[in-house]
């Protein structure tokens, strides 16, 4: 039996990067806001960096892949028809609990891909529209960086950049010899004490949760402020569907609580921040007579145009000792090949994001399983040539939207509450394959110039579905988009989307700074129109 709860003004589904930002922003209206999150609060004192077995946790309870992690708060995903597997986290903070905190902005050109390069579509908004929200999101998250990056228009930096360390210096020298752009990466990491958070102490374990609290995951940035401002965050609340009335207005959401009891939360406004997989899943599961193909899906585009960033990894082995895994994962980046140059054989481009190096266990894995370090008496000698001597980069490649890359609902797979689960159909385009090949060739050159004598590369990174975008795109044309230019569904006028599903194109940089800015922009657009919100 479903329990009917008291009506609230706003229900937000998902307490990740976007849900947290929107909840905080809307709180000042004094509306009654409830956020429903299927996961729980994580406990920083339990994060792997507080244990000796920290590296191995990448393959266990802190795996980024929900199918491998298999917590009761996760939902399984059918990834059989995708060469790239999903990486996420389901809990307060969402993916930011495990993210690496690379925090680039999009460029002005990223919003104008069709006009500039004749591919994909332009966004209905531009860089200038988002700029004040980027600034606000930066203040709330706390961003470290160095002002003056020539690859960007001027932007604020709030804290000193992450250290270069030995790896950053070796790579910087290599980039300089090639005459290429490079710069310290913008990072959502407190390099100084910031907003009650302690400063980074180079734990090496950003992607396992930050025990120090220096990394800007939204459980330690937005959420404490939002809760203090009156937002109710209800955990272990997994939404199965959104209900609508005969006027195509959402009436609220149905969810399962921790005990598996079904609840109906009525609301004036429903906001979805479940990410590029979770949001189309909820919409496609919300079928009704008026929306037989899923809610807000009269365009037929819900779940289509799924974009990841295809990633290539290129790592060099050096003679000189480097930093091992010490440091934040974020180091320096290069945007030498960011913009389109058709002589390279592909359209659009990528960012090289340099990492630090590897810990003792992951060095051993890559040494042994790539055949560089043998078993037996010779093991130690060869291992010592690799340990603390690896650094390199990943190339994060712009993926172009294609309607054939989809999230649909699997016929059989269900989560622990019996809610049908997503299925992916994703194929890498020739453009992406060519871009990754090029990125590997050029990275090999720069790594060798920097002093590497042996190169390890891999593309696509099979577990690299970190960025989930495009599956409920924004636009002005209801036939070609799911929501309008300020995040409101074309079909259901009290339904809003705020997460990476909104992306029209995905740029060649990580998405979360833009997701946060977009969520603030949608929330602000709502605040400015409160009297006419549903017109």
């Amino acid at each position, binding site marked *: 039996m479903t329990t009917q709860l008291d009506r609230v003004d706003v229900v937000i589904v998902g307490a990740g990067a976007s849900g947290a930002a929107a909840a905080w922003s809307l709180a000042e209206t004094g509306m009654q806001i409830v956020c429903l999150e299927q996961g729980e609060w994580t406990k920083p004192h339990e994060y792997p*960096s507080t244990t000796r077995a920290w590296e*191995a946790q990448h393959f266990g309870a802190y795996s980024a892949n929900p199918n491998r992690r298999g917590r009761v708060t996760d939902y399984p995903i059918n990834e059989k028809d995708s060469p790239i597997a999903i990486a996420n986290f389901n809990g307060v903070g969402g993916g930011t609990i495990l993210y690496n905190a690379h925090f680039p902005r999009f460029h002005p050109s990223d919003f*104008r891909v069709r006009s500039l390069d004749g591919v994909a579509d332009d966004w209905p908004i531009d860089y200038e529209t988002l700029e004040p929200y980027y600034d606000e999101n930066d203040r709330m998250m706390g961003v470290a960086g160095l002002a003056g990056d020539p690859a960007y228009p001027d932007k604020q930096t709030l804290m000193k950049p992450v250290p*270069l360390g030995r790896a950053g210096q070796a790579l910087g020298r290599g980039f*300089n010899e090639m005459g290429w752009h490079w710069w310290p990466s913008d990072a959502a990491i407190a390099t100084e004490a910031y907003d009650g958070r302690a400063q980074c*102490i*180079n734990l090496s*374990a950003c992607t396992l949760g930050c025990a120090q609290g220096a990394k800007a995951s939204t459980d330690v940035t937005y959420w404490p402020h939002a809760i203090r401002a009156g937002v109710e965050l209800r955990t272990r609340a997994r939404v199965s569907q959104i209900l609508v009335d005969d006027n195509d207005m959402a009436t609220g959401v149905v969810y399962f609580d921790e005990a598996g009891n079904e609840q109906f939360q009525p609301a004036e406004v429903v906001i979805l921040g479940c990410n590029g997989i979770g949001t189309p899943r909820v919409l496609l599961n919300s079928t009704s007579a008026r929306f037989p193909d899923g809610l807000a899906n009269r365009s037929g585009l819900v779940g289509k145009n799924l974009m990841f960033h295809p990633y290539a990894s290129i790592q060099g082995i050096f003679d000189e000792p480097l930093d091992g895994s010490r440091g934040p994962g974020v180091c320096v980046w290069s945007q030498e090949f960011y913009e389109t140059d058709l002589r390279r054989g592909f359209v659009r481009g990528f960012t090289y994001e340099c990492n630090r190096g590897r810990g003792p*266990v992951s060095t*051993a894995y890559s040494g042994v399983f790539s055949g560089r370090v043998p078993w037996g008496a010779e093991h130690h000698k060869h291992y010592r040539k690799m340990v603390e001597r690896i650094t390199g980069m990943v190339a994060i490649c712009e993926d172009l939207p294609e309607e054939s890359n989809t999230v649909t609902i699997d016929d059989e797979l269900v989560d622990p509450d019996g809610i049908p689960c997503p299925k992916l159909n994703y194929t890498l385009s020739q453009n992406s394959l060519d871009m990754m090949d090029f990125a590997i060739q050029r990275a090999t050159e720069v790594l060798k110039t920097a002093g590497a004598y042996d190169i390890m590369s891999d593309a696509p990174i099979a577990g690299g579905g970190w960025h989930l975008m495009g599956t409920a795109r924004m636009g002005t044309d209801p036939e070609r988009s799911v929501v309008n230019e300020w995040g409101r569904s074309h079909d259901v006028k009290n339904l809003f989307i705020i997460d990476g599903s909104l992306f029209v194109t995905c740029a060649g940089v990580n998405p979360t700074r833009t997701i946060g800015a977009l969520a603030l922009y949608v929330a602000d657009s709502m605040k400015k129109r409160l009297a006419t919100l549903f017109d």
Partner: protein
Amino acid sequence: MNENVIAAERFNPQLRNALAAILDTMIPADSEFSAPSAGSEAIVNDVIQTMTGSSADEIVDLLRTLQETHGKPFNELDDEDRWRVFVDLERSNPHTLRVLGGLALQCYYRNDETLVSLGMEARTPFPLGHKVADGDWSLLNPVRARGKIYREV
């Protein structure tokens, strides 16, 4: 009962000896580097505590066979014969050897003695963290000198 306890209970002394011997074959001690053997007691214990589920089943099956098919228990073979058997196993049981290899590396490279032999501190990353040098920011001068590279719209 948790999965690790169930796996640990299956390790009678014979299986334990076989496991220690195969781990020692994979990563023997090395006096030059003061590196311990992966067959040392602490690492064998860690491997047994860490293995779970179907991986544990696979490894136990492999060890049982090893103890039975070479005339005498694997741990009683001399180094040369052990190596020969191990190389054969890599060909005949690649999956199990990969699983066991992953466990061996995981446990070996978090062991105190190993980390000390590598000149590393044997401790958790938190709460002390690590020192990383800021580095020489003047390396960016050529990038600054080249000027703006972003595309106007």
